[in-house]
């Protein structure tokens, strides 16, 4: 059996009557990126926090390098967290306004007793790794733009040399041109440092660019989990198909067949019986209301074999040679 870095089994988290996460299992291998995608309220951020045991699960277990996190006491858990870090959508909320960037980057080193004789040198290395200048160590968080703050958040996460970073919507608050800088940075760091990511996002185009595998969530459950290319080119679950067809793409004149879903996502307080997606599913049948489909072959749908995959998802877009050549000028 392949040794997984992180394994999550039967994870459940209820907040009072809200069934935020309702039975989730997946694995993450070293060096890969598993994307968790879905619309608001599907439970993807809660899964991220459960994976680090920042939240206690209602049921289910998390193993990191084979070790059951629920058996760890506070001290052991803190030591373990050196290997598992998190970055947030709004880095400002997680940066201390009274500390300089240098102090913020030294703190985790001191806490874990790393690079003790050369912390200042290490801070410089970290700043260079995320594309900031050494003199930035003297400044405070409010002196930076949104994109730079996200770089500081990333520098702090990699300071302790983790193996896994949970990236919770790390680029969704950033402007497009800045978003591309941070995505490129995350990919570069992954290659250089061999990091694994759990990348939580709602933007599927970003996910296609960064993920190795993708788990699509709906109302606290995984609807489909598959390799990136497979999921984007041959989506099998009706929800994945609808989600992909709903995204507006920057290709004027490209005619796509859209699967328009009716209505809204139901409340997680009272999810539909059987398959949770059935109330909006264009293929729902009687069995879907009575029997909840399990995740088999990575798809949680009774009828996925009978549903034809929409052909347009494999559409190849002609590469614009002139544009590609001009855009190359923007690469450093």
């Amino acid at each position, binding site marked *: 059996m392949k040794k997984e870095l992180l394994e999550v089994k039967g994870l459940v988290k209820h907040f009072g009557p809200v069934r935020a996460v309702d039975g989730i299992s997946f694995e993450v291998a070293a060096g890969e990126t598993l994307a968790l995608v879905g619309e608001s309220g599907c439970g993807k951020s809660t899964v991220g926090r459960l994976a680090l045991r920042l939240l206690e699960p209602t049921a289910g277990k998390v193993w990191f390098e084979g070790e059951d996190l629920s058996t760890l006491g506070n001290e052991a858990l803190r030591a373990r967290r050196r290997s598992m870090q998190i970055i947030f959508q709004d880095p400002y909320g997680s940066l201390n306004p009274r500390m300089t960037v240098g102090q913020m980057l030294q703190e985790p080193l001191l806490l874990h007793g790393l690079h003790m004789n050369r912390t200042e040198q290490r801070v410089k290395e970290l700043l260079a790794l995320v594309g900031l200048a050494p003199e930035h160590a003297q400044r405070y968080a409010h002196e930076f733009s949104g994109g730079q703050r996200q770089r500081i958040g990333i520098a702090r996460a990699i300071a302790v040399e983790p193996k896994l970073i949970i990236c919770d919507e790390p680029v969704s608050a950033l402007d497009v041109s800045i978003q*591309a800088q941070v995505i490129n940075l995350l990919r570069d760091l992954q290659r250089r440092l061999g990091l694994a990511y759990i990348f939580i996002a*709602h933007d*599927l185009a970003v996910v296609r660019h960064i993920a190795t595998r993708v788990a699509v969530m709906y109302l606290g459950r995984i609807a489909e989990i598959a390799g990136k290319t497979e999921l984007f080119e041959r989506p099998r679950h009706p929800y994945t198909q*609808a989600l992909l067809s709903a995204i507006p793409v*920057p290709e004027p004149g490209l005619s796509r067949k*859209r699967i*328009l879903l009716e209505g809204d996502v139901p409340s997680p307080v009272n999810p539909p019986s059987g398959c949770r997606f059935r109330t909006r599913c264009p293929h729902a049948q009687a069995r879907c209301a009575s029997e909840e489909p399990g995740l088999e072959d990575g798809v949680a749908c009774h009828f996925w074999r009978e549903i034809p995959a929409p052909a347009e998802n494999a559409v190849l877009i002609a590469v614009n040679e002139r544009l590609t050549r001009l855009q190359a000028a923007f690469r450093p």
Partner: protein
Amino acid sequence: MKKLLEVKNLRTHFSVESGEFRAVDGVSFSLDAGRTLGIVGESGCGKSVSALSIMGLVPQPPGRIAGGEILFEGRDLLKFGAAQLRALRGNRISMIFQEPMSSLNPAFTVGEQIAEVLLQHKRFSKKKAKDRAIEMLRRVRIPSPELRYDDYPHRLSGGMRQRAMIAMALACEPTLLIADEPTTALDVTIQAQVLELMRGLREETGTAIVLITHDLGVIAELADDVAVMYAGRIVEHASVERLFAEPQHPYTIGLLGSIPRLHLEQERLAAIEGQVPGPFAGGAGCRFQPRCPFSIEKCQVEDPSLLRLHDGHEAACWKAPL
């Protein structure tokens, strides 16, 4: 043919502690009846302030219209009094926002608010206004509109509120709709519903739309023409097909390279280095020059204005056509 809307050299400034911020700094564009113009750009580029200026909704102070003209059907809105503007807004010109609660009043039912617009502008009878409000709720595909008429906004989901706001904006069949990030706060399946709805209503009513967004995907789906804004200026203006196929301004080229594509495997994104200039970044030259890989000496000293490159295609760049 007379233009429906003509904005000429619009300048909207804000006084803040450290000086005067030129949020919109000499913007000109025009729109024919029934057409959709997309205005695209990143935070702080002045796209929303341009929209608020057209609507006469710039808070003054700290804001002020420092110059220019906004001609709607040939008449300058900047010379209109408050009462004249009120008669126009919500009637001939309507606006929808990213956050529907900025136009819906939490203390009145959704139906009452739509009916109120009709009572005000069309002098409908109460009965007729109610019938028409229900009809509008049905047209934006809100289920059981007769019952929803009596619901307060907080009872509706985000997507339904967005629809209710659109129903209110379109109740008087405006000739011009200004939509500021109308789908940005919505989940993607709901966004698809609202975009479909806007397309359908546009076909039915022939309303012209100024669509403001940061999302090039939304632009590609809805706009006929596009203006790209950067640091208070329009830097490129073209038909939607030409803008995506043959962009000429380096900022547009970089922006198109920055977005990950759903249908394309990409190795590395062509990120634009650096940041959008702050409000007081001065200098005589082109505002994009510090981030531009194509810049030449002239770009540092002289600010380029929009230059016509092709029918209906303009770019503000000394190096264009690239």
